[in-house]
């Protein structure tokens, strides 16, 4: 146990370095790429003087090192991510406003993907080469070959337009519904807190298609991973001995599943971090109004502080998730240590 805490401490020491790298990358990625936001803001017909004026106002006329210094200083002394070139609102406010929506979508979507994918993988490996395996592999092949935005559109077309089970893809709740009082910012949670059951139902109804889209699309990862790991585990000496001791099949599958636990948890962590940007297209299709949708918008408009802020926040979030992931893997498997 002692050496494991030591390993964790070592892992934590790496964090400040990684944070610095993320901060620098966020700046570099945005400012080193070509494109002048002043031109976008000024429009095609603006005079050169006007563009120069805007540049001075935005601060993009200064040399790069100076801008980097200003950005880092602002970050640490004022704890500010700057203000948007367009809305003039603080980036931090823009992000915190949208973050809970994306979090809700990602958590629900991943939950669905893990449950559905692991179920497919388990059935597939337990009934290897029999019909449940064929069925599950067909499902995986289909869901992974349809791009997520197209799957979203397909679901909208079939389930909203033809069958009419889902509401129109207009966001978190209906256009005429009054949003719940903002407590956490996450609509479903807020309706729960407000005990507004009617609105909760509406919110779930609206969340259905985007969540199913993400769940179906990402379930293939979990299905393939768990099938591969479980197939091996179900053929292992460990499982044979468990069966030879007379353990029930349910328990035997449980033994095997423990082998699959680490890769599945690792996948959850990686996808969780990746989906904050990766769900952007699904958010756009369903007018979800989350972080990803906002970031795409900012990129199209060259809103430098917004893009910087987005990269920074998602980068730090990824660091945090990976750290948690490592801690969870250590906690789950007594054999793992970072020696």
């Amino acid at each position, binding site marked *: 146990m002692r050496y494991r805490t030591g390993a964790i401490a070592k892992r934590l020491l790496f964090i400040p370095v990684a944070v610095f790298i993320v901060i620098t990358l966020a700046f570099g990625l945005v400012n080193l790429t070509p494109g002048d936001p002043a031109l976008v803001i000024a429009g095609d017909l603006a005079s050169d003087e006007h563009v120069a004026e805007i540049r001075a106002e935005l601060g993009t006329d200064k040399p790069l090192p100076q801008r980097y210094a200003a950005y880092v200083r602002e970050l640490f002394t004022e704890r500010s991510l700057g203000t948007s070139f367009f809305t003039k609102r603080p980036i931090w406010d823009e992000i915190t406003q949208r973050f809970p929506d994306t979090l809700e979508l990602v958590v629900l979507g991943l939950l669905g993907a893990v449950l559905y994918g692991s179920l497919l993988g388990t059935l597939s490996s337990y009934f290897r080469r029999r019909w449940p395996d064929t069925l599950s592999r067909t499902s995986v092949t289909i869901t992974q070959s349809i791009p997520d935005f197209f799957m979203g559109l397909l679901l909208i077309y079939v389930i909203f337009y033809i069958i009419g089970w889902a509401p129109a893809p207009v966001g978190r709740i209906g256009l005429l519904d009054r949003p719940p009082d903002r407590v956490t910012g996450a609509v479903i949670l807020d309706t729960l807190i407000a005990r507004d059951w009617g609105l909760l139902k509406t919110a779930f109804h609206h969340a259905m298609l985007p969540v199913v889209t993400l769940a179906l699309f990402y379930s293939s990862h979990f299905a393939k991973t768990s099938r591969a790991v479980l197939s091996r585990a179900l053929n292992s000496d460990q499982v044979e001995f468990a069966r030879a001791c*007379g353990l*029930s099949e349910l328990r035997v599958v449980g033994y095997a599943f423990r082998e699959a636990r680490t890769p599945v948890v690792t996948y959850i962590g990686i996808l969780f971090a990746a989906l904050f940007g990766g769900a952007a297209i699904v958010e756009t299709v369903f007018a979800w109004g989350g972080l990803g949708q906002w970031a795409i918008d900012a990129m199209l408009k060259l809103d430098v502080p917004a893009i910087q802020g987005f990269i920074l926040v998602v980068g730090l979030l990824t660091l945090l998730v990976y750290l948690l992931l490592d801690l969870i893997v250590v906690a789950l498997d007594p054999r793992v240590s970072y020696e």
Partner: protein
Amino acid sequence: MTAAAAPPTASLLEVTDLRVQFRSRRRTVHAVNGVSFAIDEGETVGLVGETGCGKSATVRAIIGLLKSPGRVTAGSVRLEGTDLVGLHPRQLRQIRGASIGFVPQNPFGALNPVLRIERQFRNVIRAHGRGRRAEIRSTALDMLDAVGIADPERVLRGYAHELSGGMAQRVVIALAMVLNPRLVVADEPTTGLDLTIQRQILDLIRDLAETEGRSMLLVTHDVGVVAQYCSRVLVMYAGQVVEAGPVRRVLTEPAHPYTEALLAAVPRRGERLVGAQGTVPTLLELPPGCFYYDRCQYRSDPRCATEAPSLREVGPGHWAAVHYDKGAGST
């Protein structure tokens, strides 16, 4: 149909004409081809043969754990009169662990790597009935003590990877025998352990079997182990028992040429190492005559090539599947 006619017997385990095939779309492997033997109460029987002779498949068929696509195509495995072949999986599960204990080859592979040893004992005991945590704990402690674990408390708290090879195998034996099975099936239980520990583990298994009057089927490819630990031996070749009998007699006066070759291959001090000639047939297509025909140095009888020999008694309790009495010329 034969079930009703079968006479009552004192044997604990009775395997009759067992056949196992591994059938895939392209080919069929005949792994076990009509194996019959019995194990009496309190008896330790050795099962020897080279790799690929069907030892493992026979053992897996007995405990009902043949891996797909292997399956029993004919024959019966009677434990205390109950045929285990075709038994409902739930009933078979109740027998495994409780009536038949299985000691596998590789202890580290067998133990669950992420569960504490105590939890593994609990799972095994609760698979066959109820039990309070404290009771199970004391049963497990007693059992670990019985297999010679010095600090059972600590082992119970720990994980498999913290054990040495010999200790891990002791824990496996404890798990296999915790429910006091009447029959223990040990599949090469000392492969992968170093020599001094092999001896200790085999001594331990024998002592545990003897004190409780258990029967044991000890699978090995080591004739020396059979000589020391078994009372009777079955020699397997190409999925058949080619010779069976009391250990002393079979090892001193082998009646089957394969047994003879096996014994000649045992290394002896000061002598050149002799390897058995040839290899086991592929078992994809069974030859019409004796399976050992190609490797046999005594083949002379015309029946050898065309007719498979069946076991016949060549001495008291000593059976061999040969057409010819190879000692006939000298006696």
